[in-house]
């Protein structure tokens, strides 16, 4: 199963997420790790510590920080044996880092829509 992770303002619709997934699969607009958004770098490092072999673009032999990734996001590819663990493990990281997670097979997009122009004050 594939899972896809990216950083965005707002939350993509399922259609927008699918289009982004296809761009990532095609590996359009590759960027070196060092030029990725900080939160994406943090995600790749954290994911590499848990399931490096699933990160498309990296491998067990090559550290992800030495590879390039699509500027549109990171593609993870898991074997069937992880069908019940991949999503919770990945979403725990994306939740902490405020990233969007897309499950292409299910058409499910998870994240937080911060596109509304609202400021909330700290508790008095």
């Amino acid at each position, binding site marked *: 199963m594939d899972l896809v992770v990216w950083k965005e303002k707002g*939350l*993509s*619709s*399922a*259609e927008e*997420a*699918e289009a982004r997934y296809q761009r990532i699969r095609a590996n359009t607009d590759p960027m070196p790790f060092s030029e990725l958004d900080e939160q994406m770098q943090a995600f790749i490092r954290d994911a590499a510590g848990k399931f490096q072999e699933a990160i498309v673009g990296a491998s067990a032999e090559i550290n992800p920080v030495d590879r390039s990734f699509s500027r549109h996001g990171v593609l993870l590819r898991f074997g069937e044996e992880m*069908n*019940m*663990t*991949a*999503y*919770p493990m990945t*979403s*725990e990281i994306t*939740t*902490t880092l405020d990233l969007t997670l897309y*499950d292409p097979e*299910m*058409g*499910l*997009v*998870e*994240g*937080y*829509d*911060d596109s*509304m*122009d*609202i*400021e*909330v*004050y*700290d*508790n*008095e």
Partner: protein
Amino acid sequence: MPSIGDVGDRLWHAHEQSEQAAASARQAEGAIGEAESNLSIALDGSSASEAEEGLSLLRQTRDVIEDALRLCRGGQDTLAQYIASITVRGPGGSRRHPDGAYRSPSGKYAGRYGTSRSGAEAEAKILATLKSRGNEVDERQQYTTTPVAIKGRIQSGPRKGELVIPPGTVRRYDGAVKRGAQWFGIEVKGGTATKTPEQRAIDDWLKKPGNTLTTPDGKILVGVREYNVRYDDEKGPN
């Protein structure tokens, strides 16, 4: 299907009953306070340990009464908001709720104009999908109330200006999902769903470290996870 007038009458009746319950609770609170005072006076004539035990029980009872009173006040505010905002739209009898969302009589999101079934279908699909992917999910609707006033500002748009959400405002989530050891409210978006400024402000407040919302069964929510799902108007969610 009841008429708008019938629904309004029922809500007003419930509102009056809520006020009576609150009044009863206040009377009970007063009675407990008086009994507590009497017990204190009687301390001289009883063993110290018996009197202290009795006083402790009275204080516990007073705490229960205060909780009941708080719930009554919360119920009053919710009912008052419902009465103020009731609007019946569409064949399904959906109406606009205090948090700004249109929902069906069963509480399911009913689309931008209150006529769509897409919210309920998307919700069911998303909850089932999360579970099928190994996530720990509570599929029940999660009702919470804000513990404090939430203040902020809408920076642009037709409602630009200060925003104040009073304590006790109800925020309902479509479920809850666990991330690591923590629970998050689930907000399902499908079709044309959009968040109201009030909902967004509560969720932004919840994201701040240290802020939590508690569900009736004691879950501590520390944030919100939102979901979009592939949706087809004719076929429903994939």
